[in-house]
């Protein structure tokens, strides 16, 4: 069900806090005036305008759960990019930044949606999935599983929070490290493949709802594999982040 949109306007948000998540990723905690609330999985557009009128604009997924007081964005710094180096290196507490949102009605999870809930993400694709997991933690009525692929353990965003979720049994968390892993690593040591999904994903007959997010090649590969494992295309929702995710 898609309600009418409130008029989508640019607003100047204030940075009230900054948290470094990994060497490349940082969470910005924003106070957005007249924020109408958001659904887990939605994103905002961020716009930067320079004195001479030069503009750059990018979309960032909301990491915070619906109902949280502030809007949190986790941004991964991409070398030589237009917007992320500014957000990660220059923006400070107290600065203003223009945002527009919340945006999106397809890649969203509502707590009343039937489950179980399967979340598969790569790199910064974990950000909207984290919003869903945080929302699930407050509203757990169905089981949830996350399969998250990152290059190394140091690149795993929200690591402590994911460990805590796994420890309390709030959700099942599996991590696949693709480039390098510690000697005592008990998770997966390779890219997400069919065998891994067979192990982690619920059988298609359970009626699980899957959300897949991250670099385009990963998303397309995982979505194809889930369909091969019997998932109906309508059970698999995707959000592609492009080549680097």
């Amino acid at each position: 069900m898609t309600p009418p949109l409130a008029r989508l306007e640019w607003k100047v948000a204030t940075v009230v806090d900054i948290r470094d998540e990994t060497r490349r990723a940082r969470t910005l905690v924003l106070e957005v005036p007249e924020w109408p609330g958001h659904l887990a999985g939605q994103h905002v557009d961020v716009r930067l305008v320079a004195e001479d009128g030069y503009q750059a604009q990018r979309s960032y997924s909301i990491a915070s759960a619906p109902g949280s007081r502030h809007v949190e964005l986790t941004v991964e710094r991409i070398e030589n990019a237009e917007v992320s180096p500014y957000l990660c290196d220059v923006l400070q507490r107290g600065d203003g930044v223009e945002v527009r949102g919340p945006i999106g009605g397809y890649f969203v999870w509502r707590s009343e949606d039937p489950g179980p809930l399967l979340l598969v993400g790569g790199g910064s694709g974990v950000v909207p999935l984290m919003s869903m997991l945080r929302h699930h933690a407050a509203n757990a009525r169905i089981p949830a599983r996350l399969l998250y692929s990152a290059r190394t353990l140091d690149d795993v965003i929200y690591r402590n929070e994911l460990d805590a979720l796994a420890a309390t049994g709030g959700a099942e968390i599996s991590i696949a490290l693709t480039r390098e892993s510690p000697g005592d690593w008990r998770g997966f040591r390779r890219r997400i493949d069919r065998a891994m999904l067979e192990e982690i994903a619920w059988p298609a007959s359970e009626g699980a709802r899957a959300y897949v997010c991250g670099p385009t090649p990963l998303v397309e590969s995982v979505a194809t594999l889930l369909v091969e494992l019997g998932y109906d295309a309508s059970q698999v929702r995707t959000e592609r982040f492009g080549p680097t995710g």
Partner: protein
Amino acid sequence: MSDRPFIARGFHSRRPAENANRIPPGQYETRDFPVLSAGPTPRTPLARWDFTITGSNGRTVRWSWEELRALPHEQPTVDIHCVTKWSKLDTKWEGVSVDTLLALASDGGVNETGFVVAFSDGGYTTNVPLSDVKGGKAWIVFGYDGAPLPAEHGGPARLLIPHLYFWKSAKWVRGLRLTERNEPGFWEQLGYHDRGDPWREQRYQGDP
């Protein structure tokens, strides 16, 4: 309609320090080569590939891949400018001058008209005045930086018109249709400029 925009503290456009006089207004220099496509990468086998020039009189001249490659080659080194604001200097290409092809087309009975539509595998089109592809200004290129043109950058062959915004340099080009009137192509139908001169910032329809 809009209030004074909010200026992001410490955000600067990437204005060039060196080479400033080679960068058109509103552009910044890049050292990499961004890939922009309006659709999936086509994969036409060379055995089935051809290039045609068709006149408004219905006459067509056609070259197979081997026939195109047999024509005299040039190796232009040019600056290119994308309407999404990046410019790349001193790019090195290899290909056949459009002048060579137009002369052969004329010999083959194709009539000359004022405008051209370039068309590509996958359905992409773009339009330019004929004068913008004559006089040493345009090539059909199949080599980039000393190697065969990669598919993601338009290989096996693309149109190269470096003095215009790079969306006019149609990737995966398969031919030119000479037209009496200006026929807006894929992006021009949606508001991009019919000519696209970066030095006059002709990005959108209506830009002078």
